[in-house]
């Protein structure tokens, strides 16, 4: 098979960080007009490879060849100048600026009076329109839109230059199906125009839908480069994790079907719980031992509802009862002391405490609940840390490493450990599987099921509807910051059926019919 010349090539690159060899003799090539996916478990070195390629990190050995020339990029700017546009894993935009400025920073349209803002915003609007964001006001502050939209804004930013290479590190981690479709449309079109696209995702479906070629990394080493059509999923997964993974077959088998006695006093009962501008007053019950999924499109208000339940935001209406006792959840502390643990969706801003070690991050909530005066005894800490690092196989297995040096997925695992360590009665998981590799995802799902079995109430929020459906016993459907329905899981409830409920639901009305939706507990405010 004759192949065109690689536009970007990494030859035998190695990078070490103190204590970790993040890349070990990795080679990689990117051909024009193809979508190339980089696969690997959390911490395999995908983001590191991308950063090495774009001059954020300098490689210790090996070389980077762009369009046939060996290059040493001193920073993102010079990589950009060489025609490589990149969207990094964590959304890297400036929330103090407007949407339009974020898209156009460094590329503003100028005339003799300096920057011409009218034209700049017009260009920004135009760029946004190509990702289906034509309705966003480029003059609105970036902080006014959700993480998902920010992710799309970051992608439109990468498209304001005429690049030959577009690198997208987990661009879909916050996006829903709709948005992914739009993005893939754009990617395909760019590919057809000869742009080389490097793509990272943990969603196998997406990988198979979009990519032409796959490179697999494992523990910082190069495993192989394959044509997507030559590699089936099982093969891919075993290449990633390095062994046949039987447990993966269990994936999707633990759907909840049992019927629950709903007359018992619920673990958590909210009546008219609401907050202006965030979520309309909502009734909600959560029973012990139950997994309740929140479904909805991005921005539907799932996070907002979860924050109210956890006490992270203060509700301005409604009452909350825990095991029948009326409580007021005015702060996260109050929630925590009622046995409610809340794992947030934005790991970097609201989750990790970057410079603290993995150990300290795991025990932080436990310690906070005990108060400052009584330190958690060292033995207990070691025990907890060991348990959860093993349970989620956090890598590298070094509890004293500052958490900010872990890969994104591993940070997420540590955070789960933090919340489980508090031994909560009610666990709220907001996007716990975002950015987590297949193996770990299965682990987490399994853990959730186990926890519920053990009597914990779990709220599970995920943009992946399949996952919600697979795990939840009951699914609360939200739309436009309002609860529009509730479905008890059972045969016939599928991601599609949920989507169609969302699609047909109009504000204030209970869901009426979906083909086989077993039972419906319509809720109107």
């Amino acid at each position: 098979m004759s192949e065109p010349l690689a536009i970007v090539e990494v030859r035998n690159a190695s990078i070490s960080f103190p204590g970790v060899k993040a890349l070990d003799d990795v080679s990689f090539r990117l051909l024009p007009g193809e979508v190339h996916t980089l696969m690997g478990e959390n911490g395999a070195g995908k983001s590191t490879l991308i950063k090495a390629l774009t001059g954020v990190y300098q490689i210790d050995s090996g070389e980077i060849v762009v369009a046939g020339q060996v290059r040493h990029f001193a920073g993102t700017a010079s990589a950009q100048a060489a025609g490589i546009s990149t969207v990094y894993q964590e959304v890297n935009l400036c929330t103090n600026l407007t949407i339009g400025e974020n898209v156009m920073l460094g590329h503003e349209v100028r005339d003799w009076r300096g920057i011409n803002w009218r034209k700049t915003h017009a260009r920004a609007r135009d760029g946004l329109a190509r990702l289906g964001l034509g309705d966003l006001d480029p003059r609105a502050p970036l902080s006014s839109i959700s993480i998902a939209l920010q992710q799309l804004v970051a992608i439109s930013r990468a498209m304001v230059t005429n690049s030959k290479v577009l690198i997208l590190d987990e661009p879909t981690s916050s996006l829903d199906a709709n948005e992914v479709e739009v993005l893939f449309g754009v990617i395909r079109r760019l590919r057809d125009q000869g742009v080389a696209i490097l793509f990272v995702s943990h969603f196998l479906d997406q990988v198979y839908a979009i990519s032409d070629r796959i490179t697999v990394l494992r523990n910082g080493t190069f495993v192989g480069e394959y044509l997507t059509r030559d590699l089936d999923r099982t093969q891919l997964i075993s290449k990633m994790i390095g062994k046949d993974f039987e447990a993966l077959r269990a994936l999707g088998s633990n759907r909840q079907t049992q019927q629950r006695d709903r007359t018992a006093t619920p673990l958590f009962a909210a009546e008219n719980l609401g907050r202006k501008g965030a979520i309309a007053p909502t009734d909600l019950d959560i029973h012990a031992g139950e997994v309740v999924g929140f479904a909805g499109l991005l921005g539907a208000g799932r996070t907002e509802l979860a924050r109210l339940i956890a006490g992270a935001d203060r509700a301005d209406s409604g009452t909350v009862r825990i095991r029948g006792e009326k409580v007021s959840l005015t702060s996260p502390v109050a929630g925590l002391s009622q046995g409610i643990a809340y794992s947030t969706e934005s790991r970097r801003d609201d989750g990790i405490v970057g410079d603290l070690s993995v150990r300290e991050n795991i025990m932080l909530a436990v310690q906070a609940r005990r108060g400052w005066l009584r330190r958690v005894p060292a033995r207990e800490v070691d025990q907890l840390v060991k348990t959860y690092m093993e349970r989620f196989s956090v890598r590298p297995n070094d509890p004293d490493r500052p958490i900010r040096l872990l890969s994104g997925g591993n940070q997420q695992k540590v955070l789960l450990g933090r919340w489980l360590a508090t031994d909560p009665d009610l666990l709220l998981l907001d996007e716990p599987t975002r950015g987590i590799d297949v193996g770990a995802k299965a682990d987490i799902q399994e853990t959730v099921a186990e926890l519920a079995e053990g009597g914990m109430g779990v709220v599970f929020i995920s943009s992946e509807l399949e996952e919600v459906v697979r795990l939840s016993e009951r699914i609360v459907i939200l739309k436009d910051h309002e609860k529009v329905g509730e479905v008890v899981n059972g045969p016939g409830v599928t991601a599609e059926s949920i989507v169609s409920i969302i699609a047909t639901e109009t504000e204030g009305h209970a869901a009426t019919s979906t083909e086989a939706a077993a039972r419906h507990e319509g809720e109107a405010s």
Partner: protein
Amino acid sequence: MNRLKIALRTPWFWAIVGIALLLTINTLKDPGYLALSVNPTTGLLTGNLLDILRISAPIIMIALGMTFVIATGGIDLSVGSMMAVGGAVAMETLSSLDGAAPVGAMLTAIGLALALAIVLGAINGFLVSVIGLQPFITTLIMMLAARGIARVITGGQNTNATNEPFRLLANGQIFGLPTSFVLAIAIVVLVALVMRRTALGLMIESIGINPHASRLAGIRPRPILFGVYVLAAALAAVGGLFSVSEVMTVSVGGTGNLMELDAILAVVIGGTSLAGGKFSIVGSTVGALLIATLNKTVLFLGIPAAATPAFKAVVIIVLVLLQSERVRSWVLGRKRTPRTPTGDPGGPTRPAAEQGTPVSKEAVA
């Protein structure tokens, strides 16, 4: 070898090197510099080293308080003025209680000074933690106001007083060491125990690194923020007491003037990042000792008054550069490692050099 490497990465290691260097220079000028002797008339041990320890006591106090404020991501510019307030209250009290029992008068003076400083620190803490004002501007306001309050207390005069026990704070000795220094170290040890034996230190660091995440993890930021400003003010008042007991006079314009800068320098030289987060109490103490040594060295070498700030500047610049990874790797010729893009993915703060951030190799564009 490995130990050496760890030492070289410890920021206050360089402060110790700095102290040693300054002492060496002084010894070169006068071989008897380090000698201690018993003064026949006073019966006390004397020597330049003891002088350094003694004048370091107030700096240690304000640097200690500053450490925690800085660790929470704040800054306290008012500690210098707070020293003046403490000193003013003490002197005013002592001079009005002139006839009373000396020890009782001293305790009253100390109590009143601490009480007022705590009130002022509580105002700082309230404005920062409850109202949510920025620490820099809040404490800048307090810096102005507290200086004024010190003036009001003494009616603008540089009040003096006599009280033998109080005078001995700075002029007495315990086991041959200056009383104020011994007290300062005792306070440092006490505070360090409280910080590290309880979870307070961890919580302060956590808030300084990521306040949002800390709140969600169940840490109450308000009482902690409030507390660190109160602590800083109280410690500054103690520093003020040490300082005025030297000559039993408070100079409402001069006591503690610009000392907040000394404290901040001591903290930073000791390895606590101004961005907040991990703090080092030992580091701040060593940093304070360095500042004291530097002040005394300037005097000992007889550097002209005019050149003093420039000399200080050069020492500071050399020290902070030595602490930076870039210089360290030049000096050690260590293998160059990739750079963490600042703040990624650990949050919005710039990781300080001392946190083991690999060095940047960006070309000097």
